[in-house]
C-alpha cells in the first residue's frame, strides 16, 4: 500500500460510504489486514465492505479516531484520564438500540479496547439489579417452567427470581 494514503473508504453493510483514517483503522486487526491486502490507491475502485451497519459504524469510527493517537504513540497519564472520561460519555447510548451492535462490531473487528468498554457497559447495566430487573432491561423472556423454577429456587437459596 502506498504511504501517501491517509484515509480509506469503506462500505457499511447498508451500503453507505465512510472514511476512516489509516491510523484509526489500525486499531482493528481485520481492517489492518485489509489495509495490507487491498489496494487503496486511486486506480483501484474496489471499496471493501464491513459487515457493520451504518449507525454502528459511525460510532466505531468515532471511537477509532479518538483512540488512534494514543494507541499509535503512547501517551501520558493525563491523556489516559481524559480518554477514560471520553469513553464514559461515548458509552452513554441507548441500551436497547445500539450497544449490542457495538458489542458485535467490536468482537468482529477485534478491537480489544472497545470490546472491553462495551462489555463493561453491559455489565454495569446489570450490576445491583435483581433477576427480574435485568430481564426487563434486556427484554429477556423467562422460559423456565414452574417446576424448573422451583428446582432452581432450591439450588440457589440465596438468589431470588424476582
Amino acid at each position, binding site marked *: 500500500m502506498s504511504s501517501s494514503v491517509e484515509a480509506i473508504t469503506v462500505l457499511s453493510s447498508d451500503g453507505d460510504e465512510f472514511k476512516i483514517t489509516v491510523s484509526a483503522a489500525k486499531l482493528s486487526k481485520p481492517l489492518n489486514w485489509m489495509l495490507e491486502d487491498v489496494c487503496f490507491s486511486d486506480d483501484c475502485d474496489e471499496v471493501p465492505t464491513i459487515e457493520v451497519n451504518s449507525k454502528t459504524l459511525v460510532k466505531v469510527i468515532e471511537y477509532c479516531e479518538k483512540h488512534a493517537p494514543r494507541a499509535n504513540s503512547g501517551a501520558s497519564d493525563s491523556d489516559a484520564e481524559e480518554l477514560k472520561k471520553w469513553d464514559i460519555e461515548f458509552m452513554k447510548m441507548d441500551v436497547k438500540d445500539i450497544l449490542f451492535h457495538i458489542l458485535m462490531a467490536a468482537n468482529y473487528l477485534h478491537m480489544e479496547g472497545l470490546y472491553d468498554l462495551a462489555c463493561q457497559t453491559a455489565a454495569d447495566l446489570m450490576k445491583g439489579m435483581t433477576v427480574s430487573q435485568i430481564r426487563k432491561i434486556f427484554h429477556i*423472556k423467562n422460559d423456565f417452567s414452574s417446576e424448573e423454577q422451583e428446582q432452581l429456587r432450591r439450588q440457589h437459596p440465596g438468589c431470588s427470581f424476582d
Partner: protein
Amino acid sequence: MEKSESANKMPRTEAEMRDRISDLPDSLLLHILSFLPAKEAVATSLLSKRWRPLWFSLPTLELHREDFQKFTFFYQFVDKMLNLVDLKAVKKFVFDCEHYRFGEYFRHRKISEWINAVIINKVEHLELHLYRKNNEYELPSNIFTAKNIKVLKLSGVIVGRTLSHVNLSLLQVLHLKFVRFPDFRSLGILLSGCVSLRDLVLSYVFLDGYPRLYDRHLLDIGGLHNLVTVDVPEFLLPLKVFSNATFLRFRRV
C-alpha cells in the same frame, strides 16, 4: 441507513423489545459476566435457559465478602462455586475478605485449598485481600512458584520464614499492601524470582523485628530489567534494582 422519519415510532419500539443480548455468542456473554462480582454473575443463570449454563465457564471469579449478608453464606458460596465451576476456564480469581467482622474468620487451610485449586488450573490473575488485624494468613509456598501468574495483588497476608524458592517468570504486576516479611532476605528472594516484572507497588510492607538497614543490600538483586512503574517505601532507597524504571515513586511510611 435510517428508515424514513414518518415511520419512526412503531417499528423502533418493536425492535427495542427484542431480546438481543441472548443472541450474543457465549464468549461475549462470558466477557460481560466477567465484569460482575461472582455472586451477581451466578444469579444471571436464573434469567433464562440461555443463561443457565454460562456461569460454569466464568473466566473471572470475583468473590467479595461485602456482597453477602452473612459470613457463612459467603464461605459456603465460595466453597460451592469452586467445586462446581470449570476451574480451567478461570483466568482471574479475586478473593476479597478485607472487611470481615469480629469473630468471623476462615480456616487458613481452606483458603490455601481454594488458592491451590485455581493455581493448578493455571490462573493468570490472582488477588487475595484479607483483613490484616485478624489472625494473619501465611501464604502457601505454591503461590511463589505459580508460573502462569501474570498479575498478583495481595493484602493482609504474611510471607513465611521458609520462603526459599520463587519462580514467577511471567509475573508482570505485583502489588503488595499490608504484607509482612520476616526480613530483607525474603523480600529479596521474592523480587529476584519475578524477572518479567513491569509494575511493582509495595505499600505498608513490614519487616519483622528490627530490620537492619545495612541488610538492605540483600535486596539489591539483578535481573529486573523490565520495570516500568515502581512505587515503594522510602526506606528501600537507594537501590540500583529500581534504577531502570520509567516512573518511580517513593512513599514515606
